[in-house]
């Protein structure tokens, strides 16, 4: 420590009282801020399609499922997995995960009763087509033989009775739509047994959102313990679901922070110490930036906004611009003359304010909030740098420790300006074509920091079971339920998709009429032959044909239209399932029909197929499209904001400087730095994310700050070391993120490092060459 670096407070009591009062006010306002980790409220509200997708999928709540798959080692019976799953259920229940409710015998009996009563309108065209085969003589004989065999089984009680009323088992055909996940899978005490008999699936419902990181952590920790315990018993448990992905991402971010933040902080501290040669000086350099965070949260809180925690992280990154103020002011104050810094500092601050003010008008709440945060932070940082630092940093003139290499470097940059400009142009020519290769990220999974084991488990699961939950839907809203349902049926037919449980059990009026007409036509055409065939087959198998009189009475044309409403399914296991797929709200009926077992390419192509083959009121809701739409909306708005910011900054600089060359010296280097940055990223094959685009604002902000300082011709030699220090610290902080395991963090780190490096090179190469050595701009 260098006690001489920071002198005693040199303001009067009034000043310090005002400072203390202001700090207390900021602190109180910040303390009242309502923090949230829920980003839903931050999503754009100006895009109807995105709103529709978010609203629909959020209401489905399909992410609140956790699946546990159990397999056993060779030689270990699958039965051995059941006790392990039972223990896991007991462990997870207190943490909010419980098995899905199983239907009771009475509910199932009622379900069969409803199906039998509504049978002619519940059988789809495909099921009726299959009936033609089953009711033909060969099929009928085989069916009767099965009935005979089962009925004579001593532990069978009701087959004979049930067969008398429905000998073809038509009532059970619609139930195939309820078959557990994979065709042929079966339920067993709350578990689902895979058709291959080699794995069990335990679906669990979770009573909280995976975004609740604390509870998700506790849940997954308990699941991990159960997995380890089961492994010792030769049972492999695999946990699949969004909770595992959320936990992985949180763990990756935490681990990366633990490694990159201390390393970055140490590098920054060493860099600044080498410039200030005083730890208190280093602290003073960071004081405005530290206060700016409090100011940012306080201003957003006063403005009434919710403070989304991830946004604070971004705001902190952007407020890194404010470090520039601290470094410049502290260096100048320690040198004994801060006056030359005041003007560029004010210019820099005003330009930054203009730039980030462009975010305030964004219809994306996240960006508007970010704008408020950054403006509040910048204002606090400037006030602290301009009026607080002079009271706490004592003058201690000493030669700039970096002069030995910064001055020769500056001299090289100032010599032969045309050559420097030519060099800049050559670099631009080399890198700019890379801009044409840039593309927004096409696979959002590249932003996912899940462990390879987690992805492998999901992949294996999807391969084995098809899907965990329905995340793809055909949706239709109409004033009448029948109209919505019929539109879905029409779309499904044109898309050649099999009916979901919604179409199976809740056909619309038109589809009911079609099904009943088909039923009537079938039995009108085949009824007599069927009765004759039945008599023959019964005689062959030793059965009494008269016993099947109830079946024959049922297998008849039905003249009266058969009504069917949601209420008909009350008291059956379908009550909740169907209510979630067909409900009335906002003045219309919404029908949502799950589309399962689609590959990723098929899912991606689904909206286009619907638009092409089934244009009309039916639309597609999938998580993939919601994420893609979100990225598109954010990117589009960021692009518009970018243009607005560029325009605002240009106007601000022109108005402040009012001379062509200095203006160019301030505006061109950051623009060129951005072109270099994203051009290089394009050549490297990197894809842009909304986050990397946001990072461009940081690069631009630092770039223009540095250019403003380096444009001060006569002061340039004094200012060059702090300018380089500012960029070097940013590079030190961000380059450590490149080694992060989380792809998002590593991507942002890479973009920032390249951006900061480009800033440094562009500002040193172009600004002195363009601004010349004249007097500082007015």
């Amino acid at each position, binding site marked *: 420590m260098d006690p001489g670096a920071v002198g005693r407070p040199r303001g009067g009591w009034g000043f310090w009282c005002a400072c203390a009062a202001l700090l207390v006010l900021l602190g109180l306002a910040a303390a009242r801020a309502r923090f949230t980790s829920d980003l839903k409220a931050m999503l754009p509200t100006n895009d109807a399609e995105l709103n529709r997708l978010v609203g629909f999928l959020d209401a489905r709540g399909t992410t609140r499922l956790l699946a546990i798959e159990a397999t056993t080692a060779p030689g270990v019976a699958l039965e051995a997995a059941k006790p392990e799953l039972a223990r896991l259920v007991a462990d997870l229940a207190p943490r909010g995960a419980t098995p899905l409710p199983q239907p009771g015998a009475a509910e199932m009996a009622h379900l069969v009763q409803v199906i039998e009563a509504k049978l002619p309108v519940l059988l789809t065209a495909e099921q009726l087509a299959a009936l033609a085969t089953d009711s033909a003589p060969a099929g009928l004989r085989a069916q009767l033989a099965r009935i005979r065999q089962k009925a004579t089984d001593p532990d069978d009680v009701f087959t004979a009775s049930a067969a008398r009323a429905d000998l073809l088992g038509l009532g059970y055909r619609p139930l195939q739509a309820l078959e557990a996940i994979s065709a042929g899978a079966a339920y067993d005490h709350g578990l689902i047994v895979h058709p291959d008999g080699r794995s069990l699936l335990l679906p669990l419902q979770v009573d909280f959102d995976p975004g609740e990181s604390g509870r998700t952590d506790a849940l997954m920790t308990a699941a991990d313990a159960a997995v380890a315990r089961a492994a010792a018993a030769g049972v492999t448990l695999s946990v699949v679901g969004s909770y595992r992905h959320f936990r992985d991402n949180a763990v990756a971010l935490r681990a990366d922070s633990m490694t990159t933040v201390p390393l970055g902080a140490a590098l920054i501290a060493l860099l600044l110490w080498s410039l200030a040669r005083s730890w208190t000086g280093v602290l003073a350099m960071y004081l405005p930036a530290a206060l700016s965070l409090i100011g940012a949260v306080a201003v957003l809180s006063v403005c009434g906004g919710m403070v989304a925690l991830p946004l604070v992280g971004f705001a902190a990154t952007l407020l890194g611009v404010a470090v520039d103020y601290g470094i410049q002011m502290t260096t100048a104050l320690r040198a004994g003359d801060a006056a030359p810094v005041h003007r560029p500092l004010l210019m820099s601050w005003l330009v930054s304010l203009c730039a980030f003010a462009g975010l305030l008008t964004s219809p994306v709440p996240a960006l508007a909030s970010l704008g408020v945060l950054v403006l509040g932070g910048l204002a606090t940082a400037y006030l602290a740098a301009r009026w607080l630092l002079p009271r706490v940093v004592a003058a201690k003139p000493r030669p700039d420790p970096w002069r030995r290499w910064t001055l020769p470097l500056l001299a090289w940059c100032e010599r032969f300006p045309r050559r420097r400009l030519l060099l800049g142009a050559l670099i631009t020519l080399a890198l700019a074509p890379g801009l044409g290769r840039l593309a927004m990220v096409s696979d959002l999974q590249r932003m996912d920091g899940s462990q390879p084991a987690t992805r492998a488990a999901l992949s294996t699961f999807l391969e084995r079971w098809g899907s965990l939950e329905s995340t793809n839907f055909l949706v239709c809203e109409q004033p009448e339920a029948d109209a919505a349902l019929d539109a879905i049926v029409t779309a499904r037919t044109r898309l050649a998709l099999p009916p979901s449980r919604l179409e199976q059990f809740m056909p619309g009026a038109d589809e009911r009429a079609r099904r009943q007409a088909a039923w009537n036509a079938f039995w009108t055409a085949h009824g007599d032959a069927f009765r004759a065939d039945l008599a023959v087959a019964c005689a062959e198998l030793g059965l009494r044909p008269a*016993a099947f009189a109830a079946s024959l009475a049922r297998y008849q044309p039905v003249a009266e239209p058969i009504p069917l409403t949601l209420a008909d399914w009350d008291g059956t296991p379908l009550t909740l399932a169907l209510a979630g797929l067909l409900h009335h709200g906002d003045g219309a009926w919404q029908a949502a029909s799950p589309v399962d077992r689609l590959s990723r390419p098929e899912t991606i192509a689904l909206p286009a197929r619907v638009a092409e083959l089934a244009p009309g009121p039916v639309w597609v809701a999938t998580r993939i499209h919601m994420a893609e739409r979100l990225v598109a909306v954010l990117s589009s708005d960021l692009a518009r904001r970018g243009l607005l910011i560029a325009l605002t900054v240009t106007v601000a600089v022109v108005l402040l400087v009012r001379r062509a060359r200095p203006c160019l010296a301030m505006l061109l280097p950051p623009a060129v730095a951005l072109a270099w940055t994203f051009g290089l990223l394009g050549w490297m094959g990197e894809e842009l994310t909304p986050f990397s685009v946001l990072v461009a604002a940081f690069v631009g902000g630092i770039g223009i700050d540095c250019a403003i300082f380096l444009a001060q011709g006569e002061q340039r030699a004094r200012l060059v070391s702090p300018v380089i220090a500012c960029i070097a610290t940013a590079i030190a902080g961000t380059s450590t993120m490149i080694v992060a395991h989380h792809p998002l963090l590593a991507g942002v780190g890479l973009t920032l490092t390249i951006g900061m490096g480009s800033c440094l090179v562009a500002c040193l190469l172009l600004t002195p060459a363009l601004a010349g050595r004249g007097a500082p701009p007015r």
Partner: protein
Amino acid sequence: MKCFLMLCACALIAPLLADPAAAAEALTLERLRAAAAGMTTLRVPFTQEKHLAILDEPVVSQGVLEISRPLQAVRWEFTGRSVLLFAHDHVRRFGAEGKEELSGRDPGLQSMAGQMRALLSGDWAPMKELFDIAPDTDGTPRLVLTPRTPDLARYLTRLEIRFRPDLGAPESILLVANGDDRTEYHFAPPQTGAEIPTARFERP
């Protein structure tokens, strides 16, 4: 719907250890539960006759029911056909070849564990949720169970359990299904307290 077999069994074992002198008293569920409390093991052969409307002739099968209260286990065997085992709180079904069949395919089996527990404990409460249970009014040692819900009544008309005159054991059970299909069980005199190996409840 094999759970109904277990309902029959509940009715079967409870009175086995009842005091013969009490036969003259009215038959109540409390007496049956109290009587079942003293049981350790039970072995009883039976004959099943199924009179089905779809068949000209009745289907006759032989079997043995074994219960071990210390092991909390039940074995219901139809000789040469199938075996139902309840042990470790799980119901399993084995076919004629001794191969285990997937119990999950039969919803009746899924709810059977509860019935098995009732069978072992002598607690009739679960049955009263499904049936109205009434002793015969004319003094015959017989219980008549009728389904309480229309859904259940669609499959089962009634269940009759007739005890031996001394109430020491059941004599027969009649299960009348919808359409008047009838399944009758005729029980031989039971063996009680005999040692039944644990292995009998593990595999066929």
